[in-house]
């Protein structure tokens, strides 16, 4: 049986074909699952895609490892807005991580993150 299995060319091809089809089905399934969960967002038109990119940056995407500089750029904030609103006196601003700043100033990380998110939401709403 083993000998037959290893030598028969047709069986090898069948195995490879099954593997190819399985991998394709699995790939499509993963894409569908990721799109359903909202993790993967695609747009068929490249033009729409650019417009879409700018609309999909949400304050909920902000995480503690991000820097103030990065947040200022992606949300198009005034460079001094967060500094003044959060009363940041660190000379490294805006090149400092949110969690590092919170840790250095003995502030609860999650609370500080939520306050930052709220301030950005207010800024965006006021701009509208």
């Amino acid at each position: 049986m083993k000998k037959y299995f290893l030598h028969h060319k047709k069986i090898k091809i069948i195995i490879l074909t099954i593997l190819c089809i399985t991998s394709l089905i699995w790939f499509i399934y993963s894409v569908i699952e990721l799109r359903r969960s909202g993790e993967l967002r695609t747009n068929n038109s490249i033009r729409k895609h650019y417009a879409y990119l700018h609309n999909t940056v949400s304050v909920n995407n902000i995480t503690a490892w991000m820097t103030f500089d990065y947040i200022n750029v992606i949300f198009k904030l005034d460079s001094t807005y967060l500094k003044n609103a959060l009363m940041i006196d660190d000379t490294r601003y805006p090149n400092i991580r949110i969690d590092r700043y919170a840790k250095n100033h003995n502030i609860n990380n999650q609370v500080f993150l939520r306050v930052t998110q709220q301030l950005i939401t207010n800024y965006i709403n006021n701009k509208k």
Partner: protein
Amino acid sequence: MGILTQAILPFILLYKYWALFTLTFLASLAIPIPAGTILIASAAFASQGYFNIITIFIIVLIANIAGDNVSYWLARQYGKKIFSYIKFTKKILESTNFTLIEKAISSHPGFIVFISRFEVLSTLSINIICGLGKVTYKKFMIFEVMGSFVNVIFFILIGYFFGNSWQAVNKLIGNFSIFFFLFIFLILSIFWKKIIKNLKKEKNKL
């Protein structure tokens, strides 16, 4: 997101292009840094306006080429000396199988150098074998640049076009690469008899 990535991404946000160059350079020397993920993430940051996509492309390409050149030249200048000091590597260097591999790469360097750019460990091994063997620098460079170019473009486009969804795409690539390796392993296990037969034929010719 992995712990390693969580530690690396802020480093890129803080030191920008310098960090990108350093990390890519180190990754091309097979230091365990997720270079693909870094590139996808950087391109995603570029799509958000934080980086310039062309600058990222140039910097990563230069870093990749520089890293590969370091391993090629180190192997070419000191490879044989260093490997002959260690018993284990000396044995490998003197084996017929190694001579066969060296010969195969020296006779068809283009395709092998090009394809190897898509996997970190194979990149390093091929660079070392090319350095140890008789692959000319000109030949090595042409296919090295071509391979790195395609590799960098591939990851940059993924990051740039998927923008905020880059983490999901990265997860997809990660899952798929596991399957890809299993697939290669299965192909090798199916055709191993043919490979051994060919190697023995070559051995007899030597």
